């Protein structure tokens, strides 16, 4: 006998054979389900990645509009040339601005204005809309006012009785009014420093007496450029105690909070979509492997090397993954383009293009899912004994459970981490999730085998017995199947709950009739008149608070300077002091007793400031306001929701203290959209009162939240589709076995009605158990997410407990009837022949 070479396939031949096999299987429908699962995994993850990346970019655009730049430094001193050169040296564009309060004059009229002097780099990324003589409609500007010119807010024009073209005096110079500022996205700032705006050119105020000592100057350096350069700058900038990098949080806390939650939700939802798609891939891959034991054994009898069998499958797997990735990418592109088209009205006119990373992320999700969840099931195919062709019972040893689980968990963790860019969230979800799955699996398996023993000698109706036998025969498989359904339901519950509560939370934070205009500096003699002015115009006024600017002098007899506290932000300037007998609705007492405020000389202090100052209940604090010095005793600590749209105070006194002071008043009220004329007339009637119109700002916030809500809805839909896929693939995975069984039962004389009944019983039971488990787990998961991650109060799942188990039983048995109708429709002989 001559020797022959080993049958080892060269790479090209391997690949060609793998492709041919794959193509043949695809044609015969063997691959449909796994391909579909992959396709959904890739499509959903890519679409979500693309959409959220683009949305995030557009949100970033929004937030940089709040800052006016990619990065902003605030300082109480002018920026040095070295500092500016550091930025320009890194290739960053810069702009400078300074703000200070000053009196502006127009003829006999004068008023305090917030002056903003900007250089030629302004407005950079800020949105600045101005009405000019030539453009009566607001036009977006790419520069500030020219030297010698001034742009003013309408409010300031009204206060000064000025109009476009008039001359105003500021310091020792005069300026011609050439623009009316309708929007200034980087206005920012706290409520109490908000005098109406006057914007002038940087050069006009340099060397002016306005900038002398004692003026409250703020300098800001705006920068934009490459993220790397920005990060480098932040590293290299020698930050003195006069300077601070400003973030969106400084600009607008409310906006930042909503955005952070929206991002967390998007990340979480996309993460859950990945989990679901992965489960679908795992189920399909397992079924695929099971159906390929025979071909593997056969190929081995044809003399194929073990390693080559493995490579054949690897090639097929990779090809599948690439095909799914390509098709999924195309679908995802269409999907997100469609969504953007649909939402054209609410989305910003120009959505930035998705970054390459988002593409990479979505596309790689298919491959990672396939390798992590599919490969472990396919690996044993190479070890199928060729003897299987003679003995069907020889199935390959599956990969060790821990290895299979480990691979899946590892790939999932990797995906989630890349997806969410939040290691803590990823580990929390993965750790909690794995633990949950293990516990559920254990409980189910134990429960089933325990029940089986107890039910052994009980007589049940035949269809119930069949159903139960089916469930209990392979407790591990049943547990796995129930778990798949249960996890799917769980994900749906969590996503839907989060969606509802997130939307409700946003709605609550911005109720339709929330105050959108603040009125400050209301003098005692104007108070009554102003209040009736509000009522006449139908404006819903909130509480009116007295307000006196004052300084904290001593704590327990020791001066602030002595205590080294003079640089603490809130007390380095005048505090807004107030008194009221009622606790504001946005405040909450955390220590002490509000009732004490009915006494005399009492103080309620904001809790965080109290901590910074080291102030405890019972301490004595002395203040000076309007030339009067007085002592107070701390009787309560308050937590304040600074994001609420009503006036908030660090210090609140008992009413007796305010009686000796000359307060002005502050309030906030809601102006409906159709009542702008009334607002204007109110401003005209009370020119001395500072009216701060927040409508534009709030409107912007509202439309942003609306966009994000839509994205949230969309992602919910994608997750639901992925969930359905898991259910279908779990059902289809057991289809073959059921077909065989159905055929056998019918040859034994079982009526198709009996089989259908047994199936209905089985799947209702499964749906019921899965739903109950899902509810239990979701309750725990939601609690953790709400309280630990999202910081939304959690009030339980509520009514879902009642209807979900029923619905789940109904849907599952319905789906099963649909998918398994072949088991009772097709003639047994055909089934037996096809499956033989």
């Amino acid at each position: 006998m001559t020797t022959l070479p080993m049958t080892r396939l060269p790479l090209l031949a391997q690949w060609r054979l793998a492709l041919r096999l794959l193509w043949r299987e695809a044609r015969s429908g063997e691959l449909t389900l796994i391909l579909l699962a992959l396709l959904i995994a890739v499509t959903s993850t890519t679409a979500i990645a693309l959409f959220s990346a683009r949305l995030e970019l557009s949100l970033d655009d929004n937030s940089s509009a709040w800052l006016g730049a990619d990065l902003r430094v605030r300082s109480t001193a002018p920026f040095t040339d070295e500092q500016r050169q550091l930025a320009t040296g890194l290739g960053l564009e810069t702009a400078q601005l300074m703000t200070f309060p000053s009196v502006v004059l127009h003829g006999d009229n004068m008023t305090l204005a917030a002056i903003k002097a900007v250089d030629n780099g302004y407005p950079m990324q800020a949105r600045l809309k101005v009405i000019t003589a030539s453009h009566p409609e607001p036009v977006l500007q790419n520069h500030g006012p020219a030297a010698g010119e001034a742009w003013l807010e309408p409010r300031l024009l009204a206060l000064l009785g000025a109009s476009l073209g008039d001359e105003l005096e500021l310091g020792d110079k005069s300026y011609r009014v050439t623009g009316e500022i309708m929007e200034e996205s980087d206005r920012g700032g706290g409520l109490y420093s908000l005098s109406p705006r006057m914007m002038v050119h940087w050069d006009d105020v340099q060397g002016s007496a306005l900038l002398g000592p004692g003026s409250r100057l703020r300098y800001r350096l705006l920068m934009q450029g490459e993220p790397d350069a920005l990060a480098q700058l932040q590293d290299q900038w020698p930050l003195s105690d006069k300077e601070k990098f400003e973030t969106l949080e400084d600009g607008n806390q409310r906006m930042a909070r909503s955005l952070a939650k929206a991002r967390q939700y998007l990340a979480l939802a996309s993460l859950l979509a990945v989990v679901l798609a992965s489960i679908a891939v795992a189920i399909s891959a397992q079924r695929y492997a099971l159906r390929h034991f025979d071909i593997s054994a056969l190929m081995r009898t044809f003399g194929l090397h073990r390693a080559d069998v493995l490579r054949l499958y690897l090639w097929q797997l990779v090809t599948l993954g690439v095909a799914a990735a390509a098709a999924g990418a195309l679908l995802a592109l269409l999907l997100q383009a469609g969504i953007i088209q649909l939402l054209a009205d609410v989305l910003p006119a120009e959505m930035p293009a998705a970054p390459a990373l988002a593409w990479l992320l979505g596309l790689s999700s298919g491959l990672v899912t396939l390798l992590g969840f599919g490969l472990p099931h396919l690996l044993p195919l190479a070890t199928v004994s060729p003897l299987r062709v003679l003995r069907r019972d020889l199935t390959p040893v599956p990969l060790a459970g821990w290895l299979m689980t480990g691979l899946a968990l590892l790939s999932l963790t990797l995906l989630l981490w890349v997806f969410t860019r939040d290691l803590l969230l990823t580990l929390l979800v993965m750790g909690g999730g794995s633990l949950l799955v293990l516990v559920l699996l254990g409980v189910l398996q134990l429960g089933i085998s325990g029940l089986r023993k107890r039910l052994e000698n009980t007589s049940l109706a035949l269809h119930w017995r069949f159903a139960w036998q089916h469930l209990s025969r392979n407790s591990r498989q049943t547990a796995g199947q129930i778990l798949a359904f249960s996890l799917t339901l769980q994900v749906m519950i969590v996503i839907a709950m989060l969606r509802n509560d997130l939307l409700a939370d946003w709605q609550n934070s911005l109720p339709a009739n929330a105050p959108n205009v603040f009125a400050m500096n209301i003098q005692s003699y104007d108070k009554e008149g102003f209040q009736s002015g509000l009522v006449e115009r139908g404006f819903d006024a909130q509480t009116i608070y007295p307000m006196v600017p004052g300084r904290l002098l001593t704590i327990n007899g020791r001066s602030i300077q002595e205590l080294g506290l003079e640089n603490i932000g809130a007390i380095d300037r005048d505090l807004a002091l107030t008194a009221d007998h009622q606790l504001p609705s946005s405040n909450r007492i955390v220590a002490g007793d509000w009732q004490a405020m009915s006494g005399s000389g009492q103080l309620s202090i904001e809790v965080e400031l109290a901590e910074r100052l080291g102030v405890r209940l019972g301490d004595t604090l002395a203040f000076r306001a309007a030339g009067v010095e007085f002592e107070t005793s701390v009787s309560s600590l308050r937590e304040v929701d600074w994001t609420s749209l009503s006036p908030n105070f660090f210090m609140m006194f008992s009413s007796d203290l305010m009686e000796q002071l000359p307060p002005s008043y502050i309030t906030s009220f809601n102006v409906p959209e159709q009542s702008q004329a009334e607002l204007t007339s109110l401003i005209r009637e009370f020119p001395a009162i500072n009216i701060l119109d927040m409508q534009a700002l709030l409107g912007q916030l509202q439309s942003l939240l609306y966009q994000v809500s839509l994205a949230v809805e969309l992602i919910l839909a994608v997750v639901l589709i992925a969930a359905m896929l898991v259910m279908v693939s779990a059902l289809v995975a057991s289809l073959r076995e059921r077909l065989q069984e159905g055929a056998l039962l019918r040859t034994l004389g079982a009526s198709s009605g009996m089989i259908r009944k047994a199936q209905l019983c089985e799947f209702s039971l499964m749906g019921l158990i899965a739903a109950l488990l899902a509810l239990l787990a979701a309750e725990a998961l939601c609690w953790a997410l709400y309280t630990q991650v999202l910081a939304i109060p959690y009030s339980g799942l509520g009514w879902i407990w009642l209807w979900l188990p029923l619905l789940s039983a109904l849907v599952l048995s319905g789906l099963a009837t649909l998918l398994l109708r072949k088991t009772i429709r097709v003639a047994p002989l055909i089934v037996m022949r096809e499956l033989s």
Partner: protein
Amino acid sequence: MRNNRDISLDPLEKPASSSATDGHHSLALELTRVGKTVQAGGQPLTLLTAVSLQVEAGTSLAIVGTSGSGKSTLLGIMAGLDLPSAGELSLLGHRLDQLDEDQRAAVRAQGVSFVFQNFQLLPGLTALENVMLPLEIRQQTKPQREAKSLLDSVGLGHRISHYPSQLSGGEQQRVALARAFAGQPDILFADEPTGNLDRATGKQIEDLLFQMNADYGTTLVLVTHDPQLAQRCQRQVRMTDGQLQDVTVAEASA
């Protein structure tokens, strides 16, 4: 990486000691005191005891016996699908008991093929593709042409693009026969090839099998419990409780 070629080829290059050099009377298969013991429920279970057998190239052998007598186990071992726990075994000149699984696969690729009781056609492949598969794996040129002509020779030239589920049992087994002869194997192992077929269809398959076997000059080892089928082989042996007994040499009685 180890060098597959060097290591795996080595045992194959040594002709087995018992193999004769004369091609006409060389042994296709030789078993010397082959035994098989497995562990079942913690107890050792003996499936085969000291089976010795020689099959000359180009001859046909039938192994008969009742269910559970060990004949399928023997077939698996002879074909290199399983390893004996004792004794020596050479197939086509290679000492199978000294080869690892992949080396045995190489022996199979070289010239061993099978026909099974349950046909073992792949449901996802058409008749043509099923026949082509071993040719493709062995990287033969023009697998399609050979597969087509094989299907023609089993009378299924008109049904090459049908899937197994669209074929009757007899037709499926004819496809399996075509596949078994693809690549002109040196030895064919058949496990109850007519076991799943009715008498008349079984007879057709039998005829086809022996016809093709004669045409290709293949060595045939056949496991069956059907005495009539066994009669058509040149030689019959009987398995009883794991032992080979009652060896009949057809030529001697003829």
